[in-house]
């Protein structure tokens, strides 16, 4: 058990990444009740956007210059694709039965993966992502990588920014209004089309930040990276209460911690040695999800929304 502090940090870092991606699921769901299964792939394209910027920079550029530019590249690519997806794939189906946009989302997810696989040079296997030099840093028995520091800083800042945006700005309040009742919001002069586009774009921004964090942390990006992570982030969004932006972050952290701790410690319980390890960690995470949904169907921070699902 002496490694517990480090495992907690591992779980929190993994959870922060889930949280950043989960925001996109939860915002889009909160406003148009669509589970945007292509969001994991939007996250992935963000990673490739950042990598492209890095490739275009002269070799030997320091990360201090490169990182902001890579972030801009990631955000640009991810939001462009998210907004285009909303405009051309989802908006025409706005009033169609709910299964139609869901299947569109799954199709889009596969299409984006395959497009990157086919057209991004070298993307048929994992591509190396640049590292931040220096580190690791030691804090008592805890070791933190330079790649993790970006995530440690970016996640809370993103969260604070989002909270401020939704509460204090005109567009943010428009989002809340559209979430509560799109028709009435429209009557009150809210441009709901614009609000929905904003929701997709904002989700993509956070996914792009998450993708840069992923690249820095694991040192690689690949065309499949959004699939499993997207699924986990969606789980985090449901766990925290889908539609609630703080819930997404809390759900992410809880899921990350649960996964890490069960991976390590379940095997130490006598009689359960076989049920430890990473594949089982995923299983335990879903057991947790089911338990939470049994006792709090609306998720950890969710509110009861009548007849929405």
């Amino acid at each position, binding site marked *: 058990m002496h490694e517990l502090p480090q495992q907690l940090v*591992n779980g929190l870092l*993994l959870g922060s990444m889930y949280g950043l991606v989960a925001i996109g699921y939860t915002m889009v769901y909160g406003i148009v009740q669509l589970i945007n*299964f292509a969001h994991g792939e939007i996250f992935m394209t963000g990673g490739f956007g950042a990598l492209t910027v890095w490739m275009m920079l002269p070799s030997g550029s320091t990360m201090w210059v490169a990182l902001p530019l890579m972030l801009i590249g990631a955000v640009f690519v991810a939001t462009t694709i998210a907004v285009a997806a909303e405009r051309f794939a989802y908006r025409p189906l706005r009033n169609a039965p709910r299964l139609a946009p869901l299947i569109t989302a799954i199709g889009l997810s*596969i299409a984006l993966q395959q497009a990157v696989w086919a057209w991004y040079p070298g993307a048929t*296997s*994992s591509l*190396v992502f640049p590292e931040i030099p220096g580190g690791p840093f*030691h804090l008592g028995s805890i070791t933190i990588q330079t790649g993790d520091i970006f995530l440690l800083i970016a996640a809370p800042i993103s969260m604070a920014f989002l909270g401020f945006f939704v509460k204090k700005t005109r567009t943010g309040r428009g989002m809340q209004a559209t979430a509560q009742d799109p028709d009435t919001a429209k009557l009150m002069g809210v441009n709901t089309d614009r609000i929905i586009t904003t929701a997709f774009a904002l989700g993509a921004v956070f996914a792009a930040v998450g993708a840069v964090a992923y690249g820095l942390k694991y040192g*690689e990006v690949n065309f499949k990276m959004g699939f499993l992570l997207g699924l986990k982030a969606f789980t985090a969004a449901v766990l925290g209460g889908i539609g609630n932006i703080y819930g997404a972050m809390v759900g992410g952290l809880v899921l990350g911690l649960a996964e890490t701790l069960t991976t390590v410690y379940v095997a130490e319980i006598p009689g359960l040695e076989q049920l*430890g390890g990473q594949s089982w960690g995923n299983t335990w995470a879903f057991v947790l999800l089911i338990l939470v949904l049994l006792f709090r169907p609306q998720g950890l921070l969710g509110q009861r929304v009548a007849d929405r699902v």
Partner: protein
Amino acid sequence: MRHRSLIAVTAALAAGALTLTACGSRDDKGGNDAGGGDTTVVIGVDAPLTGDLSALGLGIRNSVDLAVRQANEKKYVKGVTFKIEALDDQAQASSGQQNATKLTANKDVLGVVGPLNSSVSESMQKVFDDAKLVQISPANTSPSLSQGPKWATGEKVRTYKSYFRTATTDAIQGPFAAQYLFNKAGKKKVFIIDDKKTYGAGLAGTFKAEFTKLGGAVAGEGHIDPESKDFSAIVTQVKSSGADVVYYGGEYPAAGPLSKQIKASGTTIPLVGGDGIYDKKFVELAGEGAVGDLSTSVGAPVESLPSAKEFVANYEKAGFKEPFAAYGGYSYDSAWAIIEGIKAVVDGNGGKLPTDARAKVLGAVQSVSFEGVTGKVSFDEFGDATNKQLTVYKVEGGDWKSVESGTFGG
């Protein structure tokens, strides 16, 4: 709603898999530039041509293509023009089985080279055996494929007469690594990790048995999910276990990031793996910390054998886009074993293919014996390669460098 979306996801995944299969068959390339033969014989290839393991799979396809082109150029078998049909299995057992069915349905296919993964082979063996179609894998290392599920207890039974391989099994590779680490590298305390796949778990198992028999200690064991890239939980366990080496049973897409994360945690212990991590991509993914990581791979280094120099030169001349990777030489030899088998059958039948060509070729391959690029190519009573040489490689200066070759004594 949840239930329905589950169905939708499954359907979409199935559709996706089908799309990928379609992508694979677009890659079909025929080595038919020679022409002039009356009969066309197809040699099937099954390997992951897309996805994480495509670096290895494309090397397999290209090497078979090269063998076929040369056989056609030399008019090696009179009256026969060879072609290849390369199918993509995405490293998935289900795709592999579909491909096997497709290949057996094509009457012109008289032999198949592949697949890369032991787990994929498991799904294909019966299909080929029922059709009496010879299958030679250049890369499968799981012992049970040829020696039956109870091989470890000494009860060796060959389940499928149609299955051969030019690769050496884990029953030899794991212990070979254990002996090298314990006796030569002086490592006494190991942390064993695998990816729960047929290849990875099997390799880790044979390694562990030999390492503990030699007197080494196992500091800990763990399993990772190769689809995830976050190994922080197990890396922390490795660090606090006090192990002086990590043995990983699995392939390079996960091994690279795993090595990187182990080094980043502040320990400098090397990661050691089998032929599944012996690829340049491992060195790229693992980064600078990978210096000193070890791998074992079957056979002598391809570039070092005189017979192999010609292969390397021809491969470069042929202008393939992708390198021949870890299994190029074995794939080339596998293809030649099939070609030699077909030649024996054609020669024994008055220069024509007999009506039961598949069964005849199967018998002929069992008794082939020739000098290939990886050494002498012939098969024992289980269909395993008689050549049991292995080599230890070390990461140095951004690539794998051979340390020493040897034959495993048992």
